[in-house]
């Protein structure tokens, strides 16, 4: 079971991606818990998640978040996958990062 936190400015566009990722994960029978939240919430709730994924539009927070959560996997989503709201590709990115 992987807990995935998606982060963007207001948590709106990542929630679109969240739905697609949940569908893709179910198809792959990869157990996940996924939520989308605004960047302003990350420092408060970030510690409860296995992997933090940033939307490309807020990727400038990447180094700061890596510093705040040194034990977590923090990464940003590629513009291409994000634009297509490609749930499958992002799940694959997660599996690659977590080596599942």
């Amino acid at each position, binding site marked *: 079971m992987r807990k995935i936190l998606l982060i963007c400015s207001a948590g709106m566009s990542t929630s679109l991606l969240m739905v697609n990722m949940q569908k893709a994960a179910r198809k792959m029978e990869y157990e996940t818990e996924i939520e989308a939240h605004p*960047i302003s919430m990350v*420092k408060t709730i970030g510690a409860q998640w296995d992997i933090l994924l940033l939307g490309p539009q807020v990727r400038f*927070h990447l180094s700061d978040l890596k510093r705040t959560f040194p034990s977590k996997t923090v990464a940003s989503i590629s513009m291409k996958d994000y634009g297509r*709201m490609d749930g499958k590709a992002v799940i694959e990115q997660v599996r690659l990062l977590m080596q599942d």
Partner: protein
Amino acid sequence: MDGFIRLIEVKFVPLAAKLGAQKHLAAIRDAFASLMPLIMAGAVAVLMNNIFFVSWGLVANFIGAEHPFILWTTMYIAPIFSAMDAGSLSILALGLCFALGFKRAESENKDALSCGLVTVGCFILCGALSRNNPLVASYITHFLGAQGIFIALVVGLIAPEIYFWAVNKGWIIQMPDSVPPAVAKAFAGIIPGFLTIFAFALVYYGFIMLTSMNVFTWFETNIQATLMQLGQNIFSILLISALIPLLWFFGLHGANLMEAVMAPIYGTLNQLNIQGFQNGIRTVGTGLNELSPWVRDSWNVYVFLGGSGATSALVIALLWISKAKEDREVAKYGLGCGLFQVNEPVLFGLPVVLNAIYLIPFVLCQPVMTLVAYYATLSGFAGPIVNTVPWTTPPILGAYLATNGSIGAALTALCCLLVAIVIYLPFVIAANNAYKKNQ
């Protein structure tokens, strides 16, 4: 063109990214974001009253202010929603300085709750509870709301620094291990809290001695008006309008990055407009006791039509002209999201980001739309913004509601959309021709 884009990407983007991640700016942004529940609670209450229940409301305009329904709601319903104001919009500055102290401490790994509370203390002792200004907005008797935003911002940035300084010096009361952690934590804040509040007491004392005014009154008389007028200067507004899509072109959330500037100035003006309107102010202008022509929501309802860069216009132009199947797919998906002002699928999917074809119209259309809407409001064709609507309100409807039912505002938003379509059109045609040639 590609060389130019690469140059900006190397020089400009890291700078923007650095600014975006800067701790104080991030705290300002996050603090304003955390005020959302308060802002929206107050905004919805005002909206309900302004549309349905008061004699100057939208419904009253149609059925007459003397209609029994309006007389009844004015008496029995409107007071409930008016009462909400005192606990929401009227305490924004108080909420802001707490949130700032809290968020700053969070990012420095200090006790956030203590730091937030101490910051509130400093804010209050500067004189937040006593406002008496016969010239500007005399109906407001304290600085806990929009009138106190700037001081809340300054106090919210300085007070935590003093607090951290004392903590980092190690000036904390250490408790033996047998004391429960929660108690020990509270004791740890005692000396830093005392020093911070003492420092602000000195500031308060200094202001009273030197100017016979408290910090708030001094700021209001000497600086606030100038700052607000600078904010209403068309060039400041155009600059922000142009920077947002420019940042977005490089895939950075422009509005999010600019929020640290937009929220204190234009957000404050937004609240002042709402309060002014409720208190019977109707004239538009940049003077005392007038409604500002350009506020935070002006961008949402006139410029970000479908999201930053007015991508609704781009999507419409694409569906009209483009023959490229992939582009049409993105546009169709983008049309739905764009209805609620979400446009990442278009920006990253088409893409607009780092796509040289769309650089010019994407960056140009926002300032042009801003000009149209600014002068439409200043001339009185469109009503001023007097309600807050959620930024996800569909285009045109947003303008109508935010201006409390100004048809001119809805037409202005429509006009802005048409202008943006005209700006995008030649570039969509060019992209389509290039596509046809490749086929």
